[in-house]
């Protein structure tokens, strides 16, 4: 199952490292990353493959959210289909 991870918040050292190491810990493969910095707002979008993830999707979402809260960031993971449904015919 492919999903989109989004990270939004103020820029600081170690955002990518911390999110990537969490994904790696649960065996989630990163397929693509794009990142922008608009003024001080850091935005990262990752396409990931969760098919070999070692925990449930709901637990992964909670783990990412908690990791984000530690760094005062909004971190979400959502299945790719919702974006396809909304933006592709």
């Amino acid at each position, binding site marked *: 199952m492919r999903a*989109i991870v*989004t990270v*939004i918040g103020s820029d600081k050292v170690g955002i990518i490292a911390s999110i990537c190491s969490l994904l790696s810990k649960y065996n989630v493969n990163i*397929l*693509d990353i*794009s990142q*922008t910095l608009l003024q001080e707002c850091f*935005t990262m*979008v990752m*396409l990931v493959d969760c098919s070999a993830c070692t925990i449930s*999707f*709901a637990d992964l*979402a909670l783990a990412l959210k908690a990791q984000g809260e530690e760094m005062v960031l*909004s971190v*979400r*993971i*959502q*299945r*790719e*289909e*919702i*974006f*396809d*449904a*909304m*933006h*592709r015919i």
Partner: protein
Amino acid sequence: MINSGEILSTIDMISQQHLDVRTITMGISLRDCAHPDAARCCDRIYDKITRYAADLVKTGEAIESEFGIPIVNKRISVTPIALVAESSETEDYAPFAAALDRAAHETGVNFIGGYSALVQKGMTVGDEKLLRSIPQALAETELVCSSVNVASTKAGINMDAVALMGRIIRQAAERTADNGGMACAKLVVFANAVEDNPFMAGAFHGPGEAECVINVGVSGPGVVHHALQSCKGESFDVVAETIKKTAFRITRVGQLVAQEAARRLNVPFGIVDLSLAPTPAIGDSVADILEEIGLSTVGSHGTTAALAMLNDAVKKGGVMASSHVGGLSGAFIPVSEDAGMIAAVKKGALTIEKLEAMTCVCSVGLDMIAVPGDTPAETLSAIIADEAAIGMINNKTTAVRIIPAPGKTVGDTVDFGGLLGMAPVMPVNGGDASLFIARGGRIPAPIHSLRN
């Protein structure tokens, strides 16, 4: 891969503009639960609902978590109980409502709809027993919603039922006087009721429906409002196009959720209902959209035209995004559930008469309107008759969900809490309709009902 801008726009819709799926509603047929013994019938109803809907809430929550889209309500609609209960040898229908309530609590849903009767042409013995039990049934249960269809384009208006419903609404309010007349917030009087409506309080699982289906109601007034903020000063052509595109996106999400829920629950997908359903939250208001189109306040002249355009554009955008569209499918204008509507009523800009005009061009009707507690039953019946006439003649669904708030008068407010919101008590016309209502009988079906 979808580009980052599109991804972030979706996230913005969900986190900032209140985009959600308003409801996943499981429709369950109870026709096979009928039994001469009322207690056995109630047991069968409870058993069947709890069996079919056992995983409904859990599945809804799983979809919510995986797709990152809030699914605000999980609900159940059932066969109109009058059709199921009338085989039972009993005068007391309240136990059927209690069985529905217990099943709703057991499955964890927000509401269960279908304590209903379809009496547009006449009442059977069972229909009348159900109607007369509505005040008690709604006062003694928490999650049960009731609806009565009193008119249709094909059958005309059953004025005996209209007269009875005025009295029933009064009784329902009086029985829940401690709670602002809360029972009336769970009671809808329809013309041209639809069989696959996922929204409460008017949902029931029509007799023409399958054994069990999943219907989904989308929402998203905040998203439409936000999209229109980039169209300031543009022509109506641009406004309509923008609404269509937005409605398409919203509905695609609804369709995705509906199909996913149907697949996981192993139940056929029924319909997606394309309704802009507001909530009392700031920024989730249909009134805000109308004001963004250019009205200083909802209720001013121009409101009906703006609403007609909005309603039509939502349908045109939504219909391409879903394989089966049904239910009510139109913008809702419930007063108590829409912060912009509440503000307009408080300013004196929005009256019942203007709301009645607005119901000619949108879904559904006079919805969540509080009126003085001493409003005569005949006046309530006359309000129902007016709405039913609009529905009958225009071949559309109309409804009345009106609360004669006990002990309250114009200027007071009634707070129902949660999604039902807060209703300012609105003035009604003081003229007397008692002779009109006392006539009884049926208003014949209009000439354009003869289409064969």
